[in-house]
């Protein structure tokens, strides 16, 4: 019986991932590529392609399927045989395994999903065979492509990263990727890919968007093989094994989290109470000590005008308050500092925080996209040209700035090295109670975030956003919260001591 219980317990405690795992645990799933595809394989590959891939990559593999216009980067045109994620040397075709792996894992930060969960290994191999028929380069190749040899890895260390940083300047990675790696280098705005579409250099501080993944080996391979079809060249000629690892280590040293995964989303944004003045400058050391909360932003694709390719993909928020005012610091990456200019038709960069005007007592609240006819929202919005504005919304097309006299918020914003930092302040309570939210401690207040990148044509309803999350202003703890528990410990302890003593004495008797 005991054994049975133990075994049951072990089964219950075994993490579910360990069980029923797919065969082939090596990266991307193992399995040798079929030596020569049979006509049946090609036929099967074509059928799968037509169901799952054609509407992006086009019936002819020309990258012009019906959904292509909604994607940037555009779906790959397979006819040139250019592939970004390779383990093979610069200018060469990918190996079959490379194609299999990219189909399996997808390309993070693009529309290309990974197909591991939906297509079997055999089906993915059939697709590899079929894709190769779109480009004559594969049939013409006389020898298999040569793989890149990854030399002994230099572990990540401060010295190695510093050397990588020097190389980053010396061989001019910064010209595209920017001084701090946020993809804001001087040549970044003009870059186009081999198909003539504008392309952005990767933001090296967001490894979860790297097309080929963010393991050290993946970065090594990208530097050695280059990213075919994109302006990112191969550095095989200028970087030996050691220098390549220094650069890889430098890139990895830029990450906030060494795992390279995107920051976890927190549902509740908490505002902590502080005593005294709150620094208005976003660069003050004070802000380094405040807990950051991260929210991923996505394109507004709910109503026209839609934004299918948003530029800002997340915002970091910190919140504190004192007896008078609430202060929120927003930090987000944007490669260019754009200004509104009616003559040139350019727009400003901006970010906004949204609250319902009335904190709902029940579950009911305004629609997260700028409110609805029945319930209004309030926006605290900072723009790179217009500065701070308070607005009210009863719908996407019913957004109005408040009157001059009711504008009580202030803000200080800075742009540096591809990043905005803005501190917004608003009094906790205002006179205009009909239009302004009155902040109260200890309640869950719906909150949502928006961002606009003017250089990406984002203005009005074309923006990046979140739906409702929660904002919670932590109440200051009254003194009794500590006094009473201490008292309780003493009383309970005393009482217990008395009872036990009595008990032990009665035994003696």
């Amino acid at each position: 019986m005991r054994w049975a219980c133990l075994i049951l317990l072990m089964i219950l405690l075994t993490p579910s991932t360990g069980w029923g795992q797919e065969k082939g645990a090596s990266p991307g799933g193992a399995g040798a590529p079929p030596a020569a595809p049979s006509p049946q394989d090609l036929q099967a590959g074509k059928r799968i392609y037509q169901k799952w891939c054609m509407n992006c990559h086009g019936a002819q593999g020309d990258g012009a399927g019906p959904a292509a216009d909604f994607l940037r980067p555009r779906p790959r045109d397979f006819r040139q045989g250019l592939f970004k994620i390779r383990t093979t040397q610069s200018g060469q075709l990918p190996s079959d395994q490379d194609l299999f792996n990219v189909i399996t894992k997808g390309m993070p930060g693009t529309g290309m999903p990974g197909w591991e969960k939906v297509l079997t290994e055999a089906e993915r191999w059939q697709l590899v065979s079929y894709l190769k028929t779109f480009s004559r380069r594969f049939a013409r190749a006389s020898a298999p492509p040569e793989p890149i040899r990854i030399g002994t890895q230099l572990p990540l260390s401060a010295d190695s990263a510093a050397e990588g940083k020097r190389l980053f300047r010396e061989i001019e990675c910064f010209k595209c990727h920017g001084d701090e790696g946020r993809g804001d280098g001087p040549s970044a705005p003009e870059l186009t890919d081999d198909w003539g579409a504008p392309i952005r250099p990767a933001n090296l501080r967001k490894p979860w968007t790297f097309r080929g993944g963010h393991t050290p080996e993946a970065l090594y391979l990208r530097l050695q093989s280059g990213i075919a079809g994109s302006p990112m060249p191969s550095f095989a000629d200028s970087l030996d094994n050691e220098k390549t690892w220094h650069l890889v280590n430098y890139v990895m040293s830029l990450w906030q989290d060494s795992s390279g995964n995107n920051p976890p989303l927190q549902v509740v944004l908490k505002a902590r109470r502080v005593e005294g003045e709150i620094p208005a400058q976003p660069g003050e050391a004070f802000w380094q000590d405040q807990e950051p909360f991260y929210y991923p932003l996505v394109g507004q694709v709910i109503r026209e005008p839609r934004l299918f390719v948003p530029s800002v993909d997340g915002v970091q928020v910190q919140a504190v308050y004192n007896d008078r005012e609430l202060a929120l610091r927003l930090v987000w990456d944007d490669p260019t500092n754009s200004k509104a200019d009616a003559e040139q038709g350019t727009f400003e960069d901006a970010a906004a925080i949204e609250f319902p005007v009335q904190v709902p007592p029940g579950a009911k609240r305004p629609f997260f996209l700028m409110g609805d006819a029945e319930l209004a929202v309030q926006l605290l919005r900072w723009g790179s040209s217009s500065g701070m504005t308070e607005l009210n919304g009863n719908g996407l097309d019913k957004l109005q700035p408040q009157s001059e006299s009711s504008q009580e918020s202030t803000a200080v914003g800075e742009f540096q090295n591809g990043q905005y930092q803005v501190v917004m302040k608003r009094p906790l309570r205002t006179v205009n109670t009909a239009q302004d939210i009155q902040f109260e401690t200890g309640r869950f207040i719906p909150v949502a975030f928006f961002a606009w990148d003017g250089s990406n044509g984002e203005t009005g309803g074309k923006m990046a956003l979140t739906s409702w999350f929660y904002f919670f202003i932590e109440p200051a703890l009254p003194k009794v919260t500590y006094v009473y528990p201490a008292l309780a410990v003493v009383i309970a302890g005393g009482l217990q001591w008395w009872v036990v003593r009595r008990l032990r004495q009665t035994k003696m008797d």
Partner: protein
Amino acid sequence: MRPRLSLFSASVLTVVLAYLFIQVVIPYASMWIADRPSPVTVPAALTVIYMLLVFIGLYIYITISEENVREFLQPILEFLRGGETGVRAGLRLGLLALVPLLVGWITYDRLAPKVQSLTGIRIQHPTIPGQYEKLINPYRNPTDDLVKQFQQQEGLDGIGLEEARKRLVGTALAEGRALYQKNCRVCHGSKADGSGPMAVGFRLRPANFRDPGTIATVVEAYAFWRISEGGRGLPNESSPWDSAMPRWKEELTEAEIWKIILAEYELADVEPRKPEKLE
């Protein structure tokens, strides 16, 4: 003869089992009975009442005779009256120190400002409005009339009716897949798994059509209603204010929506629920 469990151990066991029953068995049983995607937790207040009943029952049972009381108390008294040294003494000291600390912690927990629970109850599948209830997908088993119309349009007089019907369904499916990738992919994902690139920004996640708890549990008319009216068409108990689901009747024709539905079920690899027989 099997040794009988002491009254004290039996009581403790009863309490533990009752608690597990309330916290584990009932939630999973309700999930199974009510056909919910996740276990249904018992509200805290109800848990307190259930446990109170267990305690009262035990109290009555123990105090039913003098003998029972003595048997119940014996291990406790023995433990408290044990010797001054040894493992038991150490254990006793530890336990005795723990009790006041526990009391202090409970007091603190009571006083500290409570973070209210955020898990509101959301009805995922509210009742379908009457005007949508009886609709059927014209492209799933097209009527002869529709097939003939298709034949005329496409100049397919030469082929038989059944062959034309197959082609009509095939065309509708292909169009549906394309419309799906154009319009729905960003949220519901290319693979119909609810993981499109825009999904991460919405706290109420776009439905994962491969999950047996979404479109597989509803009839096609229901999907038609949801796609036509979007999040704004939901009643309050389904939190329309949190739903990013667009109102597609403003942008897609009815025929297009039916074709998308055909493709949506095919891509998700699930079957729609069969409508009940119409009288």
